[in-house]
């Protein structure tokens, strides 16, 4: 990885000795979903600014950062709306239509039980999906941006 040198020199200051983010090629099998991450150009953010504030503004405007943010939001916004509506529907139905919820499905198990357990199931599924999405689509690009931003802010007078 071409950032290796920069990372080592920055290690003490970063207090991040584990470098928990994935290096290319060992975390995920090739050909997995989104195996081509965000187009992170070698110098994503223009080096126009001199102060740290300018640098953060520049990074925020850069295409690489916008891509990371887009990917995060595109997953999180619909997912949050979906699980929240589904949970609220569960709670409201319990008090608004108890008759429906009490309808038996199989033996003593009724609709209310099935929906309640369904909440557990969807929570587990969404957790898995989010973790996978973040790992495959976001982590690498975000890490590259992190090192670049830190390189730049180190040079700038804070």
């Amino acid at each position, binding site marked *: 990885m071409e950032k290796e040198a920069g990372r080592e020199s920055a290690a003490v200051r970063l207090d*991040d000795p584990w470098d928990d983010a994935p290096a290319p090629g060992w975390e995920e099998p090739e050909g997995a979903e989104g195996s081509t991450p965000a187009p992170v150009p070698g110098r994503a953010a223009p080096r126009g600014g001199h102060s740290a504030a300018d640098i953060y503004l520049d990074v925020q405007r850069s295409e690489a950062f916008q891509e990371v943010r887009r990917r995060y939001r595109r997953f999180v916004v619909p997912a949050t709306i979906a699980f929240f509506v589904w949970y609220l529907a569960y709670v409201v139905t319990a008090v608004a239509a108890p008759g429906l919820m*009490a309808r038996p499905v199989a033996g003593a198990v009724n609709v209310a039980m099935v929906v309640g357990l369904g909440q557990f199931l969807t929570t587990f599924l969404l957790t898995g999906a989010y973790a996978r999405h973040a790992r495959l689509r976001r982590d690498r690009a975000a890490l590259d941006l992190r090192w670049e931003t830190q390189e730049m*802010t180190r040079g700038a007078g804070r």
Partner: protein
Amino acid sequence: MSGDHQTLALLLFSAFIAVTLGITTWVSRNRHGSAEEFYAGGRLFSPMENGFAIAGDYMSAASFLGISGLIALFGYDGMLYSVGFLVAWLVVLLLVAELVRNCGRFTLADVVAARMAERPVRIAAGTSSVTVSVLYLVAQMVGAGSLVALLLGGTSGAARSWTVIGVGALMVVYVSLGGMRATTWIQIVKAVLLMAGTVVLTVLVLVHFHGNVNELLNSAADRSGHGKEFLSPGLRYGGGWTARIDFISLGLALVLGTAGLPHILSRFYTVPTARAARRSVVWSIGLIGSFYLMTIVLGFGAAALVGSADVRESNPAGNTAVPLLAMVLGGGDGSTGGTILFAVVAAVAFATILAVVAGITLASSASVAHDLYASLKRPGSRQRSEVTVARVAAAGIGVVAIGLGLLAQDLNVAFLVGLAFAVAASANLPVLLYSLFWRNFTTRGAVWSVYGGLIPAVLLVVLSPVVSGSPSSLFPGVDFQVFPLENPGLVSIPLGFLAGWAGTVTANEPPDAAKHAEIEVRALTGAGAV
């Protein structure tokens, strides 16, 4: 109750105390009292360790004793707690964990103060964090009290009070000597114990019914005295429209409260990166989800095997359903198996309470020292180390929690936690989400949103039937009840969000684009994270 299980339970519990005190001394040897060490345990826990610790922090006595008790008494309506407590983790995972890890250092206020005027924001967020923590602590203390009342035969109020005091004193020792590192290890030990105990009981319940869930549910319905109604919604929250709206209010508080709990937020700072924070949450969702699934089995099991009437007789709020269930599963009162199982469960529940209490005390002492003391001290005053202040604060919070815990002994633990969640969701969550996601958010908006959620939430609780005006309230003798709902969430959470919006649009200061850029870049990439 015979003396055997008392002795055994006390023995097991003493063993747990010995082990945890051992951890505390071992961990705190050769440690310098740096803030990094005290509040965040050096930030070098692995995701799995932190996942267990989060689960340990979260699976409180409220869950183990309270939820199962509510299910044993009210059947399906108790299940809402299980579902809400779990679904809430999606808010944490998707919107909070990674971003907070990247932007903050020790507390919730760090995240907000990163882009706002520091002093007012710290005072506001610190105040609300301490309030939430104290409410949550009271719930744990009440759990400890009812457990001991059961253990010692429920005869002496003095024993109960001394337990509450003892738990409080122990937690102060853990926290002030061991800091975050010791607290984390205590959480991990406790999470493993609690999971093991719950798995054993669940398996025993299922074996008792030959793995037939249908039979379990049917016997639960039969012995509850409510028949089929026991298995569908409406038993506790089905009456008038107030009760139904109360249910929605509680549901909202549960799902939005977790992400505002200070002791949960501070756990994300114990791992090195945002990615590790995410992976800890994934671990904890797995653990917490399976745990809550099992509490459902235990609740219906207690209804089926102990009977709702007996549960209610032992503790009107249902807090002792699980220990009673353990007694029956082991062979009944007086049998060896029953004695052992009862003692084990009681000891596990006690360990749970101690660990959670330690976690919350640590988080709130961090809020006091890092946010309130650091902002309120006079510039010229003698410089004390922040960690020293935090240690003293832990003792002070312990005293307050003990006092309130003695007052609130007859309320259901899960229900009390529901209140803490409502305050967290109203005061802490809006300001956190606005700070992370809203470009135009301002200092005034931040301060308004904290107080605009905190004050209505606390005020509505004071004016609710929980505090006065009904036979089961805190002060049954007086009546200043105005607000009909027991849980304020439905009103106070929107108010918190509304106040943050209003404060922002009426502010004179222009939003700081550079600060927003900084927090957004830092949140999503981890640049400059400590």
